[in-house]
Every structure is written in C-alpha cells, then in structure tokens.
C-alpha cells in the first residue's frame, strides 16, 4: 500500500478551486464549486449539457471572471492581472478545434507557437506533430482534414507550449468511434508523460477509462472522487446470482445467511445486498447447493460510472420537482 507523503512534503496541487461561483445576471452557471487537481492527474469533469462545465474551464482559463470564490491555476492565483501568466502556463483545447482552415497544419502550428512567444519553435512543432502522428500532414490545408485529424492538430497545438495543465473541453464531441479512440489513446499517452489533464466530457465511458478521479457537476458540484469510490458511496455491495431454474423458496435460502441483508429478483437473477461480497459469495454458494439449486453464476454486481452519474443527476431532477 503506498505511503502518503506528509502534508508539508506534498507538492502543491496543479489546480485549487475554492467556492468558485459564476453568475450571468440571474442565471447561475456554476455555484460554490471547490476541488483540487494533483500534478499528473487526469481529472474528469462530468455533467449534463448546461451544467457549467465549459464555463468552469473558461473561468479557470481567464476568459471569464468568476463572480465569487477563488482559484489557483498552475500555481498562480486566478485574478485579471495574472491572466497572461496563467495562460502562459496552461493550454485549453475548446470543444471546436478553432483552426484556420485556409492555413496549413504547419502554419497553424507556427501561429500558435508565435502566440506563446516561442522563438525557434520548429523542433517543438515537429515534436508536437509527431506526438499526434501528423508529421506527414504538416503541409496539408486544415480545411481538407477530417474532423478527427483536426482534433489531433488541436491537441498538437495545445501541447506546443508544454503546458502544466491541459484543459480538454469535450475533446471527442462529434467524432466517430475510431477518431474518438485515437483521441483517447492520445490522452493516455499524455497521462504517461505526466501532463495534468482536466477533461470535461459527458461521455461516461470516456471518463471511466481515462480519468484518475472525476467530479460530477450539475451547477453545483455533486461529487468528487475515484470512480470506484463514488460507486461505493452511492451503491451497496451486491452479489448477482443466476440459477438454472427459479428457486422455490428464495427467502428460506437467503435470509438465513448472516452476510446477506436483503434480496430481490431482477432480470432473471437474484440480487443480494451483502455486507462483504468476498465473505458472502462462498456462504451463498453453499446455501444454494444445500437447497438443491443448479448455480450458473455468482458474481459481484458491478455499477458503472454511468449508474453513479444517473443516480446523482436523477437526485437533482427529483429535488427540483419537489
């Protein structure tokens, strides 16, 4: 088990957000949001459309001023005066790649390098294009590239300045599955290189696959943690049991087992709520065999991040309806 470094020795987080709120007149984009992102972490920022994800990224990227609250981005306090310094240390890839379609890939990259004040940027440009496997397309006009390739150019552009934090806002939105997979492998590569990534998405499979931790936002922050932690917080441990034929008296089989709290029949399986799945599984197996049942399978019931997300968002919908 890894031993955590004492508080004083731990490096400062890459991103600290403290009670940040943004309102546009009467409308609240996000409210009282607090979280931290560690260096080298891939942090997923999930939420339904209109939850405030993009506005949060724009706020942390100094495009939008927060209404209240504070944040430290890449070690710099989020203030209007620090805007240039923060933007120098981070890179943001908005949902739309925003490339100049009449310019070539190389011209777009040179332009971006210039905006970051990078002199003699050719080696960096080559390295960034190499990282996204686009070196052989450097001379192509961006207008002639597919959506997926444009997204890769945008990632290369974001990597040019060697940012301390890379904000990716819905990087796979509108991409076909193959192009989305390419972006996923790019993000995995960046993670391997230790880049801190702040990934907003409403694709839960993407977040589950790529992120160390996720935050679920629905105007307010609903939850933050590792996907497994969130599952444990929201859902009880359960075993799913399948038998060849239905049990004649399930109560008699399950209620007598100490580690089984309750059971229900769901989609052809018996779902048992248990205190400890590892302890309960052999006990349940013995009880089933003792009752003469033909056991097809016993497995721990898995809840996906999607279940967590839907549970939290549904809670919000119900709360609003009350």
């Amino acid at each position, binding site marked *: 088990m890894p031993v955590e470094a004492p508080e004083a020795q731990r490096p400062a987080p890459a991103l600290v957000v403290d009670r940040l709120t943004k309102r546009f007149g009467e409308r609240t984009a996000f409210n009282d949001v607090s979280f931290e992102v560690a260096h080298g972490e891939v942090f997923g920022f999930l939420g339904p459309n209109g939850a405030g994800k993009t506005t949060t990224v724009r706020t942390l990227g100094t495009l939008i001023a927060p209404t209240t609250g504070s944040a430290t981005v890449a070690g710099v306090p989020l203030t209007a005066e620090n805007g240039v310094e923060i933007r120098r240390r981070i890179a943001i890839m908005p949902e739309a790649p925003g490339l100049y379609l009449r310019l070539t890939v190389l011209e777009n990259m040179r332009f971006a390098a210039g905006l970051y004040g*990078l002199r003699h940027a050719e080696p960096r440009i080559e390295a960034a294009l190499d990282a996204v496997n686009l070196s052989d397309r450097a001379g192509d006009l961006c207008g002639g590239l597919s959506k997926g390739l444009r997204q890769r150019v945008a990632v290369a552009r974001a990597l040019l300045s060697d940012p301390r934090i890379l904000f990716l806002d819905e990087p796979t939105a509108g991409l076909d599955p193959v192009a989305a997979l390419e972006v996923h492998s790019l993000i995995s590569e960046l993670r391997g290189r230790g880049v801190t990534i702040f990934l907003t998405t409403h694709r839960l499979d993407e977040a589950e696959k790529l992120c160390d931790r996720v935050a679920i936002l629905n105007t307010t922050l609903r939850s933050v943690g590792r996907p497994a932690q969130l599952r444990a917080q929201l859902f009880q441990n359960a075993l799913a049991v399948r038998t060849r034929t239905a049990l004649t008296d399930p109560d008699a089989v399950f209620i007598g087992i100490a580690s089984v709290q309750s059971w229900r029949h769901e989609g052809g399986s018996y779902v048992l709520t248990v205190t400890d799945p590892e302890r309960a599984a052999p006990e349940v197996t013995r009880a089933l065999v003792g009752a003469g049942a033909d056991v097809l399978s016993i497995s721990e019931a898995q809840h996906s991040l999607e279940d967590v997300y839907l549970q939290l968002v549904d809670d919000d919908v119900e709360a609003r309806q009350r």
Partner: protein
Amino acid sequence: MKALDGTRVGAVIRKELTEFRRKRSIVVAMLVLPAIFLIEPILTVLLGPHASVGDQSYRIPILLLILIPVITPSTLAAYSVAGEREQGTLEPLLTTPIRTEEFIVAKAAAIMIPTLGLSYLVFGFFLALVRLFSDPVIAAGIFNEGPLLLALFLFTPLLAGWAIVVGMAMSVSAGEIRVAQQLGMVASFPPLGIVILMVLGVIQPTITAAIVFAVVLLVADLLALRLTSGLFDRERLVTGARAVRA
C-alpha cells in the same frame, strides 16, 4: 503600458496576411473600389476639356483618391474580430498569452500594410498618368500643389489608421461582420471632412495646416486605438455577456 511582444504581434500579422492572400473575396473587395475610384479621376484629368491656367477643377477627382485609404480597409477591419468569432477561432486565440493591446495592434498593422500599399500604388499610378498623358496645364497645377500632395501622402496612413481602428471597434462590438462593416464605414468618414475642406480650398492647404491636421489625426487615431482596446472584453466576446465582478 507594457511593451508589446514582437513575437506575438509578428505571428498575428503573418497569419493575417497569409489568410488575406488566400481569401479571394477579400482580395476582390479590396481591389474593386480603388479601381472604380481611379477611373473617374483618370477620365476627368486625361480626357476632360482643356484647362486654363488657374483652373482647379482637378482637385475634385483627387477627393476620390483620398477615399481609397478610408474605404479599402473597411472589409478587413470589420472581419478582424467578428470574423474570428464567426469561424470559431477567437476562443482558442484568446486562451493564449496574447494581450489585448498586442492583438489589436497586430490586427491593425496587418490591415494597414495592404491598405497603404494599395493606396500609394493607386496615387503613384495616377500621378504617373498625369505626368505622361494629361493636359500640361493640369499636370503643372497638380504637381505645383506641394502642400496638397503632402497632405495626400501624409493623411493616407492617418485616415487609414482611423478607418481601421474604428472598423475594429465596430467589429468588437457588433455581432455580425456585415453590421460591423456598415457601422465602421459610417464612423470612418468624419476625419475625412478635414481633408475634403482642404482639397476644396475651404481650408487653405498650406504645409503648416497639413502638419497641424496630421497631428490632430494622429492623436485621434491613438485615442481610438485605446478606446478599441477598452471595448475588447474577452468575456463578452466568448459568451455574449458582459463581465460583472462581485
């Protein structure tokens, strides 16, 4: 005011000039009006009735030439910010370390380069035609108008500068390129009044008057540049809502 970063300003200028070259509609829009404005002066000066000594009717066609640096940049200025927003390139650009002043100055410089090139080319072409082919009395009249010619050359960058900066201000404020272009065109005309009065002889075109008005225009250009930088609100440009701090 902090010093501008040459690398960032240069990057925007290079990008803009490359985009202008590849956008045929912009090249055509830039060339059509100067071509039209050149026809009338050429016809008047070269094919008009023989002039008598002291005839100053050639001054009227010169007015049309002075319109060139005002009208030529209007399309580019209107496109400068509204165009970036329409094609979705503004937000990625604003997420980089470029400062507002660098962005505005670089955009203005990128528009100024083709505008001045085209304006001086047209003036030079016109004067060459006058020297070679026009009635000697008219040629002598035009080439003896030292202060007027000085004003023409001196005011060209200043009038262009004004047109560019107010055009950009409209581009920052207006939601659409076409609206920005129309408003920018209207706003760019007032300083032209001074030049018109000078060309028409209402204000005597002396060297002193030309220099005084040039200084006035320069100050107006710099103030307009500041005003445009002030209008440049990243939050409004990205979200459409003005920034309000608690």
